[in-house]
């Protein structure tokens, strides 16, 4: 599976980890994951992530749901930004979007602020 990502302006990455293992920070990675497995990609350093394309599928605003060192969610961190994703990507991403647009989630967004799910 191919992973493509782009950094935001002013990023100073120090290392990229796939499932905790360092990989070359080339912007395009090739990786093999077991079917139906949760995986992580971690961008270390002072970084922001503008795009993350997994298996040819642009994950759009999912980039703003990364985990960061300051216990919030977003696409930018002073130390790292980490994303969880599951294979197969098409299924995980459709379900993620479906949940993100669910009624409960919409009410959360409207009335209680951001609730990371």
């Amino acid at each position: 599976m191919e992973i493509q990502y782009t950094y935001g302006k002013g990023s100073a990455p120090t290392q990229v980890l796939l499932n905790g293992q360092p990989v070359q920070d080339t912007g395009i990675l090739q990786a093999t994951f077991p079917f139906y497995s949760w995986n992580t990609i971690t961008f270390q350093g002072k970084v922001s992530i503008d795009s993350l394309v997994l298996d040819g599928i642009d994950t759009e605003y999912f980039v703003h749901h990364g985990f960061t060192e300051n216990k919030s969610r977003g696409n930018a961190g002073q130390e790292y930004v980490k994303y969880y994703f599951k294979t197969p990507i098409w299924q995980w991403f459709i379900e993620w979007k479906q949940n993100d647009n669910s009624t409960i989630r919409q009410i959360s967004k409207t009335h209680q602020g951001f609730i990371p799910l």
Partner: protein
Amino acid sequence: MTIQLSDKYPKLIRDLFLYDTVDNPTPDNCSNYESLVCSNFGFLQLRLPFEIQIEQLLKEAQSLNWKDKSGNYVWLYGQNKPLEEKLADGMGFDVDTEYTSSFKLDVESIPAFHKFYQDINEMCPITDITLKKVKPGGYFEPHVDSFGNPIKMYVALSWPKGNYFKMYNKGFIPLDPGKAFWVNVGTHSHCVVNDSKEERIIISLYADWDTISWRKIVELSYLQRACK
């Protein structure tokens, strides 16, 4: 059913069409209207108590002054304003806040639509009805509709071979012209593709479904459903 689309469509759509093998539009154990609505069903073919004048509806749809600002569809009824203003508004998602079921068009020019509208409206008040057109090669990416009203009715007026309405984990809706479907678009991700060389046109409508006559139609349709 799975379908292999060409590379001209986004990978997310291609993968959804190719790998989502689930074909389960409605559960089998619903005892009444409430249990169906609460079942997270996908879609249900409707048995309406009147005939849909499909040929006349298509002719009228084709005779309308379609404006194609952002591409795909126009409001026909719904907003309490003249058709010309609705067309000028384009898609109207953000401006369509004043819902009404008043009939605002010159009905003499579109009698089949008027009849269709009245037939539905007698059973349950229509809040909004639109015609939607997708050009050859057009598509909508997987999405979930606004949660304002989760269930929509679709009637295809033209559905050339190569058109698909795919609902994740539920299957492809067999939207042949003249068939009416009740579709849970507010719960399940769905997308459409027009992989044909012709335009396709559908009627899409929201209504206040919670009426006694509509419940009966849904329950009868469920009992007689073909898409088991």
